[in-house]
């Protein structure tokens, strides 16, 4: 690993600790929902981070289809995998927040909830294709799946702008009003999650490069002496 990695790891740990303090203690208590609203500081930044990672996955997939370079292929895989982790956080924390506030764990038919679940399933399918397909065309097939999958991201984001749903309206942009102190804590948590995502992507990237080198070496070793 490169020299910047430990620095990023330390900075991320410090930022995550500070963001946790800000979310649980420093942020003002919301008047209607009370303390349970603090789930917002993990739920929303996780969703935004997942969107950023799926955007990276989309760009890398397009670049891979044009250039067919290994780096774009690995970056696409890594961003999708870490994106699924953050999307899982959104899918899990959403119902935990919904239960005390709406009285239900899940609102069937709600467009924001449904499109988010579909988005998660699309990227799970993407990772399944990458893991299970033995075809030499796997990176190309995965890149095409990723491009179609990315179409769901704007649908998830803008669904609450155009449809009336159980899910609340956007708090930043779209006419929502958020206390400036809450917005500040939200942005600190997003910065912390972006750093964590970067750290996880970096680790996973290095791991994938090493794994591919090992596979190449094993393939070479299994070949007969004369054909190497």
């Amino acid at each position, binding site marked *: 690993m490169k020299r910047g990695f430990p620095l990023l790891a330390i900075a991320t740990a410090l930022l995550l600790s500070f963001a946790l303090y800000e979310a649980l203690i420093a942020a003002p208590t919301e008047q209607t929902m009370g303390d349970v609203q603090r789930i917002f500081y993990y739920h929303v930044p996780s969703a935004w981070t997942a969107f950023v990672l799926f955007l990276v996955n989309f760009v890398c997939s397009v670049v891979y289809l044009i250039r067919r370079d290994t780096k774009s292929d690995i970056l696409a895989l890594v961003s999708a995998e*870490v994106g699924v982790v953050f999307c899982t956080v959104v899918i899990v924390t959403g119902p935990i927040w919904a239960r005390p506030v709406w009285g239900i764990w899940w609102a069937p038919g709600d467009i924001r909830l449904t499109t988010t679940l579909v988005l998660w399933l699309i990227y799970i399918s993407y990772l399944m294709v990458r893991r299970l397909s033995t075809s030499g065309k796997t990176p190309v097939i995965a890149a095409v799946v990723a491009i179609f999958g990315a179409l769901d991201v704007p649908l998830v984001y803008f669904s609450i702008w155009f449809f009336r749903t159980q899910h609340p309206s956007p708090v930043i942009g779209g006419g929502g009003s958020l206390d400036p102190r809450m917005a500040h804590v939200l942005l600190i948590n997003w910065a912390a999650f972006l750093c964590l995502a970067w750290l*996880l992507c970096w680790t996973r990237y290095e791991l994938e490069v090493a794994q591919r080198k090992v596979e190449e070496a094993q393939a070479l070793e299994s070949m007969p002496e004369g054909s190497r």
Partner: protein
Amino acid sequence: MNSMHYLYAAYIATWVIHGTYLAILLRKYSRVRKEMESLRK
């Protein structure tokens, strides 16, 4: 259930998910390292 329990549950769930992913990465890392060592021998 107290609303604070939901708050703690959400925060703990978030860190369990990240921790699980980190554990998967570490397991993968140790496997790749073992394979590298066996190739060097």
